[in-house]
């Protein structure tokens, strides 16, 4: 009996369905994963069972960021920057007011939930990718942000060595304080570091202006970000 035929004894559609419904015990799940590792038939069956026609295609089509997503993000940063410059009150623009209120309420709820249920506070960290990992030019980064992280927090790419660093801020993560975050990062350089960068208000405004500047290059020198502090670093990443 070959290993493949032996493992096929464990082929069981009902067990796959229970896995999809998250009702398998940890030991059963481990056993199933081991079986799937050897059994292409069950892997195909599982793919068919899990995927409603179209959902898989939609995932690839809709979740991938494109140029218009980046434009939209830049416009958002630009709007925030112009508001800060003009001293405009939040009530002058309905969406900003709504977003500010929604974020405030969410933060309050999350804080209360943490207090009531004794949930340990999350660290400020980057959980993916890993140090020295080779990533695609567009990759997903994940992590968490401590609720007491200082100032504004940006996910940034860093080039260069100590005292000669250039930061390329990618995403403002401030709204994720006290919870997990996931962002798609575009980076085409061959080698770089990924950083959680905390900056005070002045530094945050400098970053927003830099993002709004279409001629920006080649990144923000560390010297221009007074008070910036690296909360986490994933070093020596490479692109494919």
């Amino acid at each position, binding site marked *: 009996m070959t290993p493949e035929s032996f493992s096929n004894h464990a082929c069981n559609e009902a067990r796959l369905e229970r896995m999809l419904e*998250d009702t398998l015990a940890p030991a059963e799940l481990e056993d199933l994963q081991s079986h*799937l*590792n050897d059994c292409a038939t069950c892997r195909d069956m599982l793919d068919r069972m899990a*995927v409603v026609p179209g959902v898989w295609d939609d995932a690839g089509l*809709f979740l991938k960021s494109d140029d218009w997503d980046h434009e*939209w993000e830049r416009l958002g940063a630009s709007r925030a920057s112009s508001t800060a410059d003009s001293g405009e009150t939040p009530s002058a623009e309905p969406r900003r007011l*709504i977003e500010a209120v929604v974020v405030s309420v969410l933060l309050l709820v999350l804080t209360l939930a943490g207090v009531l249920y004794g949930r340990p506070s999350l660290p400020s960290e980057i*959980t993916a990718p890993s140090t020295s990992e080779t990533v695609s030019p567009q990759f997903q980064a994940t992590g968490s942000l401590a609720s007491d992280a200082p100032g504004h927090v940006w996910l940034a790419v860093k080039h260069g060595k100590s005292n000669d660093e250039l930061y390329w801020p990618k995403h403002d993560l401030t709204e994720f304080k006290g919870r997990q975050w*996931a962002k798609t990062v575009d980076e085409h350089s061959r080698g770089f570091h990924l950083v959680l960068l905390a900056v005070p208000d002045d530094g945050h405004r400098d970053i927003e202006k830099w993002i709004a500047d279409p001629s920006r290059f080649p990144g923000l020198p560390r010297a221009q970000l007074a008070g910036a502090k690296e909360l986490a670093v994933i070093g020596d990443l490479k692109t494919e």
Partner: protein
Amino acid sequence: MVEFPETRLSLVARLKNVSDHDAWGQFSELYVPAIFRLSRRFGLQSHDADDLAQGVFVSVAKSVKNWVPDPKRPKFRAWLWTIIRNALLNAIDRAPPDAARGGGSDMGLSERPTDEDPLAEQFEIEYRRQMFRRAAAEVAGKVEVVTWRAFWLTAVDGKSSQEAAEILGINIGSVHTARSRVIRRLHDCVQEWEREEL
């Protein structure tokens, strides 16, 4: 492509209360980026598309109180499409005759929207895109990081299960269980929103 539900009636009903910030936040998150992308696809420049999206948001805030669910009348999204379509027509009328196309658009400014134009279908696609992203954001926060990454690497980045397994340091069986659970949850998430309509 999967059929997505009509905007939840409960959400639309809540929009009538202008101080329901949560409802307006959801509406903004769902529709404003979709309208921006649609306007860019139609050929508007970036800032004009942004202005149009914000303008539609304000128009809806002013007039949603007049919309009532009625089987004999258009559904909410059809009603909203009328507002968007009018905003696009106004944008065309304001544009100079030799207005250049915005970069990357599929349709030029001279192509005015008609009752049966592909732009209406494109609006549905952009709406579905935002719905899917909302579902993804919800599911991503509920599963382990490695589970989500296994899904992302194979579904979005186009990696094979073998490649994803090597990147994540897990076996192929774990990649398949992870991504199939995420896909199922994404689907269930949208279905749940659909049920809330009833």
